[in-house]
């Protein structure tokens, strides 16, 4: 057995050996990435919108306190109750208290990565409340007791046959011999089961894609319409949103909305984009009687004054993971964090309670495809490098010593030449005419999965110098 140095390494090894996962990864993220390319090509203003989006986010973050205050004032004027939650635990406490106050038993929930971040579902269930995830992907994961593996397609790692088996196991009230062979049949069954929950729910919890300071609104986008049933049928609606979701005006929200769906799934816009402002109005015949917005910090304000603040520009489209060669090889679960992929590598270590010392930032080839598709131009590579620098500063003496020795050597060309010539000559001798090593002491982590090419006697620099002499410029 080979020893894995970290959970990420062990997870990655397991993911690479998981054939079902590899099949899903071969199709879905690449499909999203191709659709994004087509959507971008169909919108000549895409790059101009990206720059505008970046400026909007930077401006908002530089004035975050004032925009949050404006949001609170306008939301309150629309009879929304705004709550401030500095920590994950505080947010869960607030939501649990609202559920208890309204004597809730059944809670419907639409997609919210922030709720995953704070472990809300488990907290409510521990308080004997029934919580139903209504995004179809999230529902599949809930009945399997699994975590999301992608931020917008949480169940991409599952096949239709897996889901059919889960439904037979979980929906015992339905006839056992029913046909579940097609995705249509599966969707139809989930629709029927979840519709009863929507209609019976006491409290609906949604996330928010954006909060609009000027109107006190939350913007929620879905394709399924589950958020709309969640926020219009129960008597209480709770929005859980992190503080960086705020944007100044509707007009600026439209810039971000024009980028969001195109970057996420390649759609021009999702089927439903909903601006919700407060509870039902006096003359309304439907809608909740109370509306709450819980604003979560959970480590974000610590990033504001640092060279990692660009993380807070993120609008959670998932484009970075769709193009990432590392995500594409190991999938989202291997990261072991709520947020996977490149954005997860830079956001996760900033969240309190995560014990990642920048290890996730190591899971990158620094190829830069992630930042080339990021709709808000987050410098993901530079941010990952900053986490690596932090990891280096707190790394083991052995690792730091080796890197320092390497830096010393690289900064002294004569010493470097000498060492390179020695190493190449030694390896050439050891190879004894073979083209490659299948095993090499001290480099078994390389040779475990591939051959190490044997040097052919001379260093590159020497060969280069010789060739330059032959062909004078």
């Amino acid at each position, binding site marked *: 057995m080979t020893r894995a140095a970290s959970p990420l390494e062990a997870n990655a090894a397991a993911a690479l050996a998981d054939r079902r996962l590899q099949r899903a990864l071969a199709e879905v993220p690449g499909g999203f990435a191709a659709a994004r390319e087509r959507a971008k090509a169909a919108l000549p203003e895409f790059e101009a919108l990206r720059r505008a989006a970046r400026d909007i986010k930077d401006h908002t973050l530089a004035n*975050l306190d004032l925009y949050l205050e404006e949001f609170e004032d306008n939301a309150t004027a629309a009879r929304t109750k705004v709550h401030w939650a500095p920590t994950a635990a505080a947010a869960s406490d607030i939501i649990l208290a609202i559920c208890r106050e309204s004597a809730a038993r059944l809670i419907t929930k639409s997609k919210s990565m922030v709720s995953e971040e704070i472990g809300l579902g488990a907290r409510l269930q521990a308080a004997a409340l029934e919580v139903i995830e209504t995004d179809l992907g999230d529902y599949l994961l809930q009945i399997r007791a699994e975590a999301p593996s992608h931020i917008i397609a949480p169940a991409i790692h599952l096949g239709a046959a897996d889901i059919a088996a889960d439904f037979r196991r979980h929906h015992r009230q339905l006839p056992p011999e029913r046909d579940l062979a097609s995705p249509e049949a599966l969707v139809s069954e989930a629709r029927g089961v979840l519709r009863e929950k929507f209609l019976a729910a006491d409290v609906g919890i949604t996330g928010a894609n954006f909060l609009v300071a000027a109107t006190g609104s939350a913007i929620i986008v879905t394709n*399924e319409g589950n958020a709309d049933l969640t926020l219009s049928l129960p008597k209480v609606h709770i929005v859980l949103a992190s503080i960086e979701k705020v944007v100044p005006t509707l007009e600026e929200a439209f810039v971000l909305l024009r980028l969001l769906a195109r970057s996420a799934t390649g759609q021009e816009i999702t089927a439903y984009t909903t601006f919700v402002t407060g509870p039902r109005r006096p003359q309304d015949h439907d809608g909740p009687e109370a509306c709450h917005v819980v604003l979560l910090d959970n480590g974000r*304000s610590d990033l504001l004054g640092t060279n990692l603040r660009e993380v807070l520009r993120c609008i959670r489209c998932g484009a970075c993971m769709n193009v990432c060669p590392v995500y594409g090889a190991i999938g989202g679960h291997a990261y072991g964090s709520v947020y996977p992929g490149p954005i997860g590598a830079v956001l996760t270590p900033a969240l309190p309670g995560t014990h990642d010392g920048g290890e996730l930032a190591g899971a990158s080839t620094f190829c830069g495809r992630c930042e080339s598709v990021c709709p808000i131009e987050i410098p993901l590579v530079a941010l990952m490098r900053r986490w690596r620098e932090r990891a280096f500063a707190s790394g083991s003496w052995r690792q730091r010593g080796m890197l320092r020795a390497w830096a010393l050597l690289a900064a002294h060309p004569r010493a470097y030449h000498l060492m390179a010539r020695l190493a190449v000559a030694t390896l050439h001798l050891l190879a004894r005419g073979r083209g490659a090593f299948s095993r090499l002491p001290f480099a078994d982590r390389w040779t475990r999965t591939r051959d190490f090419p044997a040097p052919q006697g001379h260093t590159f620099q020497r060969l280069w110098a010789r060739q330059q002499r032959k062909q004078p410029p």
Partner: protein
Amino acid sequence: MLAKIRAALRAGPTDESRRRALEARRAAPVRPPVPARARVPEPERLAQFKACLAAQGTDVLPVAQPSQIPGAVADYLRAHALPLRLRRGADPDLAALPWQDEPALVVTEGPARADESVGLSRAVAGVAETGTLVLASGPHNPVTLAFVPDTHIVVVRCEAIVGGYEEACERLAAELGSPALPRTLNLISGASRTGDIAGRIVKGAHGPRRLAVILVEECRDQRLVP
């Protein structure tokens, strides 16, 4: 929390110059870029709106004038073998239609009930940029009609087809007589759908399985008359 944010931003709570800077920015905003496709003139605008609806799989039922709406609705329901029952809000435009012309069609008023099969709403605007219907919640058009029934039918006048989302908001403010938003402002672009099962798009995830737009052309023709 705000104190912590201010500390991180190195800003004081009484820093009035920052507040004034934001007010000045709001008063004279730098307009963000609006795509050309959100600024198309007529008649391309209507054609683009229809093309976007077709690409979403939304059915389009053109009628020359509002009095033809009950007939178009009844024909559509019959063509899809749907029950001839319809729920609508108190919208005066919808209430004023000659429903008596279709005696077989049972029309009731109010928010959606649990077993509702067909909901009818009027859109404040249609957005040509992406084929998006803009609905404002309220007693006139209860939001549940757009999400609970299996079939959602939306009436929109050709003169209400605008280029982009920004213009739709202007129309909404003009109609409501206030810039304040309704409880929900719904941008609807196609029927409910999901890609969560093996990446395949399936319609009718939680909301309507079917979306139809009744496009009323009369108003535009009237405007063309000098």
